[in-house]
């Protein structure tokens, strides 16, 4: 069984977001890139399946050489091999099209993306790839069980959960719940040493233009100071929320 886990490198969640070149580009100076948290839940589930059913786990990133430390970390977590598609993508459409080319060369039984990347919050790569491949997609996936070719899944929906079934091949959009926070694998020394020996293949991108281009960035307007209400003056708070903010 072949599993492909798609890894989006994103700025560490504590990053302060700044822009350069007259607000036309993201300032990457001083930004630490990490594995997109949703993808990390997916990778962990893949490594569990590798141990349980003997699956082979490949991680892939569409990105330039700066992404390689992230891929090495994925190998240290337990992936068997890594692929980097050598292109700095401009949008999710470009990513999905590159991944499609890759999936048409090798058959993957299960493809795992994250629910969304937490930088551009597109939430689109998995769905686009699924339609391009003609296979099903389950986003917000919080449960995935394999038995032979059959898959039992759960998707988080607003106010509840949905149970689904499908057969392989299939794409899921991972998030917290697919595995728990405490199950995340922190690479140990042995894993890090092994990762250095594992294959990291660089493939050339195919020709494809982006569907969208970001022209300009802006930061939210500065916020005014908080209005403090005395802890004894609950009526004062209710009054402000009713008459000033008009939200009650």
């Amino acid at each position, binding site marked *: 069984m072949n599993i492909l886990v798609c890894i989006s490198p994103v700025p560490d*969640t504590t990053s302060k977001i700044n822009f350069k070149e007259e607000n036309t580009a993201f300032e990457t100076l001083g930004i630490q890139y990490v594995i997109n948290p*949703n993808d990390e839940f997916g990778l962990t589930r893949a490594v569990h399946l590798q141990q349980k059913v003997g699956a082979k786990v490949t991680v892939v990133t569409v990105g330039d050489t700066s992404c390689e430390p992230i891929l090495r970390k994925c190998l240290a977590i337990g992936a068997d091999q890594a692929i980097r598609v050598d292109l700095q993508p401009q949008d999710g459409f470009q990513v999905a099209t590159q991944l499609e080319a890759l999936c048409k060369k090798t058959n993957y039984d299960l493809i795992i993306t994250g629910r969304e990347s937490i930088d551009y919050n597109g939430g689109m790569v998995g769905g686009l790839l699924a*339609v391009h491949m003609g296979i099903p997609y389950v986003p917000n996936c919080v449960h995935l069980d394999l038995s032979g070719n059959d898959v039992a899944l759960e998707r988080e*929906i*607003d106010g509840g959960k949905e149970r689904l079934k499908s057969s392989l091949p299939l794409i899921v959009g991972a998030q917290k719940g697919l595995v728990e926070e405490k199950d995340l694998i922190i690479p140990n020394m042995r894993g890090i040493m092994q990762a250095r020996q594992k294959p990291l293949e660089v493939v050339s991108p195919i020709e494809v233009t982006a569907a*969208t281009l970001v022209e300009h960035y802006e930061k939210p307007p500065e916020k005014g100071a908080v209005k403090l*209400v005395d802890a004894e003056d*609950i009526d004062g708070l209710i009054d402000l929320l009713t008459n000033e903010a008009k939200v009650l």
Partner: protein
Amino acid sequence: MAVVVYLESQKGTIKKTGFELASYGRAVADALGEQLIGVGFNLQDTKSINPYGMDVLYNVDTPEGSFFNADRYSSTIAGIASKEKAQVIVVSSSADGRYLGPLLSAKLDAAFLSNVVDLPTQYSPLKVKRSCFTNKAFNRTLSQKECNILSLSSNAFGLNEQQGDVEVRSEPYAEATTDLEVTAIDQATDKVSIADADIVVSGGRGLKGPENWHLIEDLASVLDAATACSKPVSDMGWRPHSEHVGQTGKPVASNLYIAIGVSGAIQHLAGINSSKVKVVINNDPEAPFFKAADYGIVGDAFEVVPKLIEKLKARKH
């Protein structure tokens, strides 16, 4: 040519997000001088859309007992969009809306633009403001495609009533293209969901333990609000994952967000920032949440919240 919006419903009744999408779609259709077309599934109250100036409503019947099916729904909507030569298609930012958007975009060779927070500033090519970096910033995106699928952030546009008398049409339900099947839905029907709520009441580690959550639930119940929590609270199992809000949890864009015993870490704030009014109750005046909030009380949650619940209850009667 047309603008198409997908109207989400629950038990045949169009949800509030549907009215917001219709209001937004009307404004887009007016700017383009085109018709506004709605698509809903198994709707029982098609008249409720009348005050939103919709021209045509396709009401699609699905077999009895069938569940939301993103593949068949998106194929059905894509079919209508092609037939009506839609230039813009709007979906919500709910779990289902964000599921459909990318599928629709691939089926129609359209661009998909998530987290849209305003009307497009131009149409050919389309250019629109979106939030990014989980609400830490915005961008202006220029589409390279003729047809565009926009996912509108909830509460970003609001409701805009006007006269209308919608023409209701039917449309066959598209066949499945994959073998994915929904087998059951487990939904807490008595609770407001975070995505649908006008008010969200959220608790953090400051509440000390799950046994104190009646404070959050009682306050939410007098306000008809949804309940939410910080990440560590769900990681420790005090509350279900589905209540975890923030950069790595659910986004919140309610009218009012009340945070109790939540410190206001950057990852928490990122996810709730687009809420209109934020209130913090925290006993530490240095808690970062006070820098992000509109109103705040420095005080002990165990003293302040019961009083707040009492006063709000009294006010209701």
